[in-house]
């Protein structure tokens, strides 16, 4: 009996140790946000909304191999349960040398600072919303293989080369054999600063949107038939970010060129500029300007011109909780836009963002 008890105790303590070891190697986090919106659109409205809730796991599988997963649940009115789950990132990273690694899986494209750094964590966003370019020009995700280097040399040079599914693909299928390659490079010359450039090129034989594009929203502003012929989609981005103790600057510039067999090439661009002035680390008043211009020749995103300017304030309770409040003026200038986005409007937004 005593021997059985001893064996049982040894087993219990062994399992406990295994659980502790497991805890050391795997970290779970969650991120979420709740918002309040008030605007003076045609139909004035005032409402609270529950935002994306993001479950994040990072696990060290061996000394050189790790897993990262990001799973999001978001509100979706057309879903039976009013919420839809999605896998936003799921990747295995092999660190084959001190500063270089190979990543396989679903990733966020490294095409600009915002997408590469903030992902779906509103806790890290400097403002309430993403720049316009995310809804119109930037392919947000891809599924494939990524070669990554970081912190190389005195300038902390970093690179990303990605070969993965394109704009028209889903997480499980791609209807053609054109797999885009994207390149991104950055330097971090001083603490808190990152300067980056990137290039993306894809041939879309049928001009179809899949789950990886962030700009599948063209139909919301385009009225009429859509083009289903081939499109060549090029995107070049430039990012400048500096998040220091006394000043924060983020500029995201994107230049997009599309070529079809019907019209001359279309040149589109967007620029987002954010300026923040942190005071004693916890108070940050900020301003931002966002501008998007899609050419009238464009048969992929379709013509639109819009801008917004905003003035806001962010209060950081601690590293896991902040609140942002901002006034925003937004205007959409394209005649074919739907009615809801035709008239300029002023909105007031409050976002409580948390991580745990």
């Amino acid at each position, binding site marked *: 009996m005593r021997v059985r008890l001893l064996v049982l105790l040894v087993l219990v303590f062994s399992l406990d140790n295994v659980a502790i070891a497991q805890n050391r190697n795997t970290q779970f986090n969650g991120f979420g946000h709740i918002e309040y919106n008030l605007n003076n659109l045609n139909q004035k409205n005032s409402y609270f909304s529950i935002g994306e809730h993001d479950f994040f796991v990072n696990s060290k599988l061996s000394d050189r191999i790790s897993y990262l997963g990001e799973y999001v649940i978001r509100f979706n009115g057309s879903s039976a349960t009013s919420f839809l789950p999605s896998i936003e990132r799921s990747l295995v990273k092999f660190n084959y040398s001190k500063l270089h690694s190979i990543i396989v899986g679903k990733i966020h494209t490294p095409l600009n600072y915002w997408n590469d750094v903030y992902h779906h964590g509103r806790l890290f966003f400097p403002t309430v919303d993403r720049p316009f370019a995310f809804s119109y020009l930037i392919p947000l995700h891809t599924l494939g293989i990524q070669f990554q280097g970081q912190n190389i040399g005195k300038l902390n040079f970093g690179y990303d080369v990605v070969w993965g599914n394109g704009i028209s693909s889903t997480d499980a299928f791609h209807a053609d054999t054109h797999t885009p390659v994207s390149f991104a490079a950055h330097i971090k010359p001083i603490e808190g600063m990152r300067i980056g450039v990137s290039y993306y090129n894809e041939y879309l034989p049928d001009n179809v949107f899949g789950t990886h594009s962030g700009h599948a929203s063209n139909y919301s502003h385009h009225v009429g038939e859509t083009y289903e012929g081939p499109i060549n989609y090029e995107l070049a981005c430039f990012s400048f970010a*500096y998040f220091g103790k006394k000043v924060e600057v983020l500029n995201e510039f994107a230049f997009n060129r599309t070529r079809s067999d019907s019209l001359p090439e279309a040149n589109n661009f967007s620029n987002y500029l954010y300026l923040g002035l942190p005071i004693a680390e916890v108070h940050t008043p900020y301003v931002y300007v966002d501008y998007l211009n899609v050419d009238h020749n464009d048969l992929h995103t379709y013509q639109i011109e819009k801008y917004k300017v905003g003035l806001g304030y962010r209060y950081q309770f601690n590293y896991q909780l902040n609140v942002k409040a901002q006034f925003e003026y937004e205007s959409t200038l394209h005649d074919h836009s739907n009615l809801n986005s035709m008239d300029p409007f002023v909105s007031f937004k409050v976002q409580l963002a948390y991580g745990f």
Partner: protein
Amino acid sequence: MDFKWIHRFAKVLLLLFVLLKSYNANAQTSWSNNLMVIGNNLGTSKLTQEYMKQTFKGKYSLWSNGQAVTIVLPSSKSAQAPEFANVVMGMSVTGMQKYWLSLVFQGRANPPAFFETSSDIVKFVASTSGAIAVIPANTPDVPNYLIIKIQN
């Protein structure tokens, strides 16, 4: 299209970069004699101050001997956290925690281990190959083989 505005914009960014670089040059912190670096199987018993600080900022993922880097940090409740965050990371405790949460979330580093007391840190480092930590210099019962000399 007229691209002159891009040149102007680049000039403004360059000016901003120069100003920020000169500002940052004055923001260095010096090493404290109150602190001691410990590590287990790092492939070396000496580190330069700069290399050690960059390691704690997640710059390196492997030691020269191929061992994975495991960062050990004082938790926010730890009495040594403010001094560590200031001297080693050049930030506040909140800033340090936010920095690491962001780095892990980006997928650019493995999560650090957090401990409240120096004795817990020593125990963890002693049992974890590749682990590095900073503890108060007067911490008792630190095995000699864990002590890492810091050079300027």
